[in-house]
């Protein structure tokens, strides 16, 4: 079976100005959202307490409102309560964001209060408490990790390709992270530690796509020269298009499987990956190559000396 029977001849380079404009608009929107709306951080990042509790059938009808009223009585008016699963499972997630340091036994106090008010013994399936200090540290570590991997990749691409390639690769990654995080900010989806992990995976994954296209551009440049860089880039993107679409699609199969049946813990993670892989594929084609063309036009594109091992391998193989 083949989806790409004939060679495609899409003029990606001509579409680039529009796409770059679109990307810039999205990034600006994301940045505005970071500043204005911020993130719906989980307790991993801001501290707080989350209790997942199952109310026994003996306690009568229990819904979010009743629990909210009880929590209000317990002096926790800001608690958010979400029902988990079907109503007959009688499971709830109670989240209290922020301050933890003053009350080391907050979760115990709340469970006790709930038990007294409901006249039953709640089953706490999980209890998580994070102090604000740890949360703040994780936030900083997360930003550090992302910036570090950008820098690492900048240096690696510089080292393996020409310097004109590196800024495009990294800008594409910054684009992917901002776009994905921007979606989480704009829609107020919960941003937890798994989402942070997903952002790092996206960086690695989007880089794959970019490398494949860059590699092909470099390979084509060595045979065709740099006089018509635009057509070289077009040819490289078209030649690798089937691979780009296929691998993104295959990885998305896995991500969608996790999204659908992977359970509630991994939902945010899978959602971030889903968006990130889409955007990563797009940015490898449009953003990374656009920056490369722009830099090559301005500062020239040296015809790279072929890696010796590469030449011998390919020439021997081709003969």
């Amino acid at each position, binding site marked *: 079976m083949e989806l790409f029977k004939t060679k495609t001849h899409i003029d990606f380079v001509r579409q680039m100005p529009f796409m770059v404009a679109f990307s810039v608009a999205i990034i600006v929107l994301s940045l505005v959202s970071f500043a204005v709306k911020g993130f719906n951080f989980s307790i991993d990042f801001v501290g707080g307490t989350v209790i997942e509790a199952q109310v026994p059938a003996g306690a009568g009808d229990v819904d979010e409102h009743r629990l909210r009223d009880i929590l209000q009585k317990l002096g926790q008016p800001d608690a958010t309560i979400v029902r988990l699963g079907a109503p007959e499972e009688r499971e709830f997630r109670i989240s209290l964001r922020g301050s933890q340091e003053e009350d080391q036994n907050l979760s115990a106090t709340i469970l006790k209060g709930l038990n007294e008010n409901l006249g039953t013994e709640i089953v706490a*399936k999980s209890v998580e408490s994070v102090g604000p200090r740890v949360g703040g540290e994780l936030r900083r570590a997360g930003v550090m990790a992302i910036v570090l991997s950008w820098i690492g990749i900048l240096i690696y691409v510089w080292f393996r390709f020409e310097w004109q390639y590196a800024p495009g690769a990294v800008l594409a990654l910054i684009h992917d992270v901002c776009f994905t995080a921007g979606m989480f900010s704009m829609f107020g989806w919960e941003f937890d530690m798994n989402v942070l992990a997903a952002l790092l*995976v996206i960086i690695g994954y989007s880089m794959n796509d970019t490398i494949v296209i860059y590699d092909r551009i470099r390979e084509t440049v060595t045979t065709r020269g740099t006089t018509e860089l635009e057509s070289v880039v077009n040819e490289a993107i078209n030649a690798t298009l089937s691979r780009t679409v296929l691998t993104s699609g295959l990885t998305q199969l896995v991500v969608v499987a996790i999204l659908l049946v992977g359970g509630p813990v991994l939902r945010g993670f899978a959602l971030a990956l889903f968006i990130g892989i889409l955007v990563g594929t797009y940015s490898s084609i449009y953003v990374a190559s656009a920056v490369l063309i722009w830099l090559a036009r301005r500062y020239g594109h040296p015809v790279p000396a072929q890696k010796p091992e590469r030449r011998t391998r390919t020439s021997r193989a081709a003969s």
Partner: protein
Amino acid sequence: MTLRGRWILIGVVTVVMAYLALPSFFSDEARASHWWLRRDGMTLGLDLQGGIHWLLRVDADAAVQRELEKIQSSVADEASEAKTQFSGAEIKGDTLIVRGDLAGLRKLIDENTQSVDVDERDGALVLTLKERWKRDAIDRGAATALEVLRKRVDAFGVREPIIAPQGHGRILVQMPGVEDREAAGKLLKSTTFLEFKQVIDAAPSQELLEAKFPKGIPEDQEIVINSTRAGKESEALLVPKKAVLKGDMLEDARMEFDRRNRPIITFQWNSEGAKIFRDFTGANIGHRLAAIIDGKVITAPVIQSKIGRRGEITGDFTREEASNTAIQLRSGALPIPLILEEERAVGPSLGADSIRDGVRASLLGAGLVFVFMGVYYSLTGMFANLALIVNVIILIGLMSATKATMTLPGIAGVVLTVGMAVDSNVIIYERIREELRNGKTARAAIQVGYARSFWTIFDSHVTALLSSIILVMIGRGPVQGFGVTLTIGLVASMFTALVVTRTLMDTIYGPNPERLRI
């Protein structure tokens, strides 16, 4: 390498990895009872098997306070030894204020105490702990706390707990399988402290005792209430603030039964403690001595004879109380309070749900990839599928051999690795198709496909490794487990994409490349 050599390599790697991976699919009991199973396998993270995770921080203020207290008493001792005028020292915040003959005291402190900066303010010496000593006090506090926690957790009966330092002044505790948060929380109780104090005066109640001292009780003494014996009227005891002996000199403490089968706590001092105890009890026969645990008077008997190394405390406690108290006395006090910075407690049922969800998603995801590859690339696609299976075997084998922890995101990592590992094969196969379209023969197309794809695959793996290694470095708990899985998976996928599928192709298509189906 010859084709034969490559097959041997693949065979050996697969068999060894499968052997390493095997224990992870068996219970501990099975691992112990079958000789052909290795003992070490992957461990399940707390998010999958349930348990309690704590991140604790040493209370830095308390650590400084404790250090200043030590300096306070040593300054007092030195002053009286050197006959320097000393009119008192008090701790205010993170400083120690010393009054008396300032010049003389300053000289004493400069000679004997390197850990403080001395300043003169308002006719008193102001001592502050130097930064380096502050850090040192916190680190020492954390180290002692770690040892105490280790003993307590062991006594609590946790199987394979993790108790490890975590950066400056922090301790990580993981107790797999522990469900009872309340009982576990008692392990953190800062001070189970046994003190022996001589009883200076006693009265049936606090008011009556206070009435004996119209000018107020002396500053270095305090009133404690003895109300432990049921049915017996409580009494108020006047005791000095300073104890004769403290539990830190205990060598052992255990629960036993006396002749009437009542639970008692027996204890044993170390040699230093034994000497102090012997001297004190010898000199105070006929006087009363109060045994105080955590500020509660347990018993206050009259000293009948000189007591040395061993002794016992009879109180009104249940068997369980006596046993718990003994454990805590034995493990010693936490020298400095610990602050619970992070707690994650997962019940076993939730963990089981997570395993079920994770495995289901993995099977579905991997199944979809397999079917697609088989359909899209026919026979050659099946080679890639075979390589993916080898990839997963290597991944689980390496994780088992390194006793890595499998977490829920880690399970997602395994199946994501499958999705990403297939990428390398797609790069190669698409290249082969392209070369075929350009009119190359099957044999040449395979050659060129692999050769041209090598550096692409290499570069894309290195960059992906970069971010997954950063994940391992910054991530904690489940996310770190995910990073480990991803890192190992990437390494394995390089091997399977470049060696395994290539070898399969050379074997099947080598002799008659016209059979190439891709």
